[in-house]
């Protein structure tokens, strides 16, 4: 069911988030209690969409200085977007699964 609706949800999120012309969007998925990548490079003002493809909930957040965000609970099949308005390195983690880690480098 989640597998079926997730692409539709992702498309909707991308349509909503991508309304700002000139800003790129990147997608990170959580699957198997791991992020789809351990490191990502994006440009200033880009948006990253986190999609939960797992069967368990996740809570994606970053406590890095200047790049804090907290997407709160992402139930299976749901997603959330973060627009990075500052340059730096964001250490992205899951509050439920402590081993889930990735790095987003905003250039």
């Amino acid at each position, binding site marked *: 069911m989640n597998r079926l609706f997730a692409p539709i949800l992702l498309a909707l999120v991308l349509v909503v988030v991508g309304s700002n012309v000139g800003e790129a969007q990147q997608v990170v998925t959580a699957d198997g209690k791991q992020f789809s990548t351990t490191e990502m490079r994006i440009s200033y003002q880009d948006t990253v969409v986190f999609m939960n493809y797992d069967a*368990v*909930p996740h*809570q994606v*957040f970053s*406590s890095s200085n200047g790049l804090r965000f*907290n997407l*709160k*609970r992402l*139930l299976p099949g749901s997603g959330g977007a973060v627009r990075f308005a500052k340059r730096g390195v964001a250490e992205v*983690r899951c*509050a*439920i*699964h*402590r081993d889930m880690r990735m790095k987003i480098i905003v250039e």
Partner: protein
Amino acid sequence: MAHDATFSVKAADRLRDLTLVAKLSLTMAALLLSLAGVIGMTMVSTRASIARHTRELVDARRVKEMAILSLALLRSQDDMSKAMLLDPARMDSLGVAKVEAFDEATALLKRMDSLSTSADLRRLTNNMRQVDEQQLRAMDTRILELTAVGDARAATRLYFDEYEPVRAQYEALVGQLGAVAEAHAEEAARRVAAANRRALVYISIALVIGVVFVSIALYGVARKMGAKLREAVDLMDMVARGNLTRAVEVDGHDETGRMAASVNAMVRDLRRMIGEIKSTSTRLVTSSGEISNAADESSSAVVTLGEAIDQISAGAQEQATVTNETVGVVKQMAASIEAVVQQAAEMAKAGNHTVHVARRGSETVRSAIQGLESTRATVLEAAARVKELAEHSARIGDINKTVSSIADQCNLLALNASIEAARAGEHGAAFRIVAEEIRDLANESMASSGRIGQLVAAVQTGMADVIEAMRVGTTNADEGAQQARAAEESLDEILRTLEGTNGELQRIAEHAHTVTDDVGRVASMVESVAAVAQQSAASAEEMSAQSVQVAEAITRIAKISSNGEVEGEREETLPVMARKLDRLIAGFEV
């Protein structure tokens, strides 16, 4: 082996030759170095031991503190878990804080593991980490998942049924770890205190040993110095009593050895000096007699010398007088020579003037000869021209004769023409007139030719006179030139003679100057000789006076050197003094 033995002997000799101060300094330095080495090694060893035990103490305390802190962090996470179980909506905010507390606890566990130096501490730390990673973390994740999906009941059950017992086990491990760490810290503190005590004991022992060695060294030096000083004082007492036969033993080259050597040298010098004084006094007695005899002889010699000096004085006085007269004569001679020099200079000057005049005469004669030769050449040239004129006039005469002949023939032809005109009658009248005219012209030509011939003859006669006069003039010019040349040669001869004479006069003047200088020097030398002669006379008189004093002094010496005391004098004679000296020296045993 033999080499080592030789080295040891040399080292011992060098040590014995050192001064006392150097020996003491070396001993003190060796002791101080040994003490410093012992104390330094003790302090280094103690410092390392204390540092190691202090580090163990600090690490154990830190492990204990970290264990307590990790437990507090775990309890903090549990409190947050309970809050989320009660209100799952708080998970959004508390979830992040819980992760941060978890991260800090994980870092503490790693740090504890690195600080745990003992095996039991490491074992307990590993157990804590295993319980945390393998049990608590998995259960906590599951509780959060259940809470996130809203299944609070299952989450609460899992927390209290499974999570709480494991957490109690973890707390027990933390308690054990704290107790073990505290025990390690106390043990380390005891070791630090023991190391401090041990270092204090070692340093005290080293100091005591050093003080004992220094005391022994000082006692040895003082004892040696005292013994040597006593020996030297004994020797000086014996010397004071007149015994110069003993000496102090010299061992080494330190201050005591040098003192002993100096005392021995002093006694030796004293012994030698007294011996020399003895022999000198003996020789003095003998010599005084010889001096007395010699003084007598010298006295008579001085008298003779005085007479000789008087004679010398008189001779010197006479020499001074004669020399002064010689000075007057030499000065007169110098004045005469000076007059000769002046005359020679004037003669040389006159000779120069004569040479100058002769040169000018010679030049005049030479220019006159040149004028005569020039005149002669001009006359010869004029004579040649006159001869040419004579030849021309001769040819004019010849031409005049031809003209005269032609005029004569024209006269005959005119006469014939007149005859023929007359025969022709009236037709020849005009022709006759022409013939008459031609005949008149011929007559005039003949008359002119006759005058020309006379003039040519007169010219030739005058030219012959001129040529003759020129020849005579040329002959006279030649004779005049020859006489002028003879005069020139005579003047040249005169000039050479004058120049030679003048050179001789110059040389005479120069020689005269040289002679004047020589005479001047002779005069000054004679004056010096006169001064010396006067000084000699004065010196001779002074020597004569001094010879009297010398004679008196020699008489005095003879009296002092004679055997016995001088009558009426407080001074003692040399033999008397020598005998007194002998008596004084007899008190010394050498």
